[in-house]
């Protein structure tokens, strides 16, 4: 504890959670300062949901998992983590934590942009792993997955979605505003597929049927599937 510096901790109520923001200092010091505060006012914190704004601090899964466990031992649940760091946001998502304040709509920011062409200025997100049931990827640009998207996994993208593997989960591309968005997959068997406002009528396919790469896009107000190679 000698090397720990005291970090200022600010707490305010938002919606039905407590939003924690920190002053200057590294993560371990910030964590220690917050836990001190929780211990001192346990009656206030107990049973509460915390949303912690860690700003630019980079947290690995082990750090965040430990933090969540330390809080849960004190009867406080970690509900979400706000951050400007891509690494930290990814960690929070993997641990199933929210990355925005409760009640705020993730797609609202997308609609503000109102572009009809694929957002070329947007960063694309590359995911190099299999998305398993319960995982959700939300991104305002394009999303590329190298791996499978399993049933129960969800992708919400402002631009295109490309899956270098089997797509069996649900996917929304060009969310709200971009009817030119496409969805590509090596094996197209989504449980749910949507481009902009149009929901695809996904034919029920036989298990294990190999159809090969396909691309979904909107044609005459309907989502159609086309084979990559005839």
């Amino acid at each position: 504890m000698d090397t720990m510096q005291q970090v200022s901790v600010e707490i305010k109520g938002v919606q039905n959670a407590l939003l924690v923001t920190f002053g200057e200092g590294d993560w371990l010091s910030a964590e220690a300062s917050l836990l001190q505060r929780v211990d001192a006012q346990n009656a206030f914190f107990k049973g509460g949901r915390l949303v912690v704004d860690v700003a630019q601090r980079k947290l690995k899964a082990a750090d965040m998992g430990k933090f969540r466990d330390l809080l849960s031992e004190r009867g406080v649940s970690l509900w979400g983590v706000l951050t400007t760091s891509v690494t930290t946001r990814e960690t929070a998502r993997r641990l199933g934590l929210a990355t925005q304040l409760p009640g705020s709509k993730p797609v609202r920011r997308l609609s503000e942009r109102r572009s009809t062409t694929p957002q070329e200025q947007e960063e694309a997100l590359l995911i190099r792993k299999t998305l398993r049931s319960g995982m959700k990827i939300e991104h305002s640009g394009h999303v590329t997955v190298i791996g499978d998207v399993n049933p129960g996994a969800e992708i919400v993208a402002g631009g295109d979605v490309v899956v270098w593997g089997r797509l069996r989960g649900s996917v929304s591309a060009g969310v709200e505003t971009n009817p030119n968005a496409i969805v590509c997959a090596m094996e197209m068997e989504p449980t749910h597929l949507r481009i902009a406002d149009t929901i695809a009528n996904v034919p029920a396919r036989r298990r294990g049927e190999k159809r090969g790469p396909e691309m979904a896009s909107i044609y005459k107000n309907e989502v159609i599937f086309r084979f990559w190679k005839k």
Partner: protein
Amino acid sequence: MAAKVITVTSGKGGVGKTTNVANIAAGLALGGSKVVCIDGDIGLRNLDVVLGLENRIVYDLVDVIEGRCRLRQAMIKDKRIADLYLIPAAQTRDKTAVSPSDMVRLCDQLRLEFDWIVIDCPAGIERGFRNALAPADMVLVVTNPEISAVRDADRIIGLVEAEEKGPALLILNRVNMEMVKRGDMLTPDDVVDLLAIELIGIIPEDEQVLVGSNQGVPVVFDQKSRAGQAFRNVCARLNGENVPFMELEARPALFGRLGKLFRGAAN
């Protein structure tokens, strides 16, 4: 000695976690290792019943953690095998009585004395799951060849990866070869294809498993049972031996061919 901590989990309930824990723990002990199993299902304990040690419980996991007894006092020694112990769960408390760091501390104490620590994880993905996962060195995911169980297993595997405890190993439990042949059951191939993790055991459906659980005698003791043999194979694989999958539980790639052989032998 530095024990390896195995957590057995599934997400969905009723797929055979507890039976797997009892059989793997007993099987490892039969192989000469020192094994302790911990029932992580606080409030709904039943590993003690499956191991036939129910009436010998005096202290439990929560007593140890809350300091009402010494660790030794809560460890129940198996009557059949010298080096098998059980730390039972409390029945009158719930998951919040234990925290993930309590489990890590407890396992660190046990590590010095044992070769294997096998933790029975409760169903679900909440506190009890995190308690059981926190000390794990290795995670076994049990699933049945059934779509809902596989979906939950997929979720669990994702959570295990997120906690950096992966890659998990897969046990496919209750495979009914007759149904697979008729096309009424997912094949091991289908399951492995979706979950994309390494398979460490395929346990055939076997009435003796249920009989054993009810009598408190894990089926791994039964030399004639195919399920017992499958569990002994899992234990051998955990010990690093390269045991081929039984005819019935042939590797997915060879599945069709060996399945045919087995059918031929049966006729």
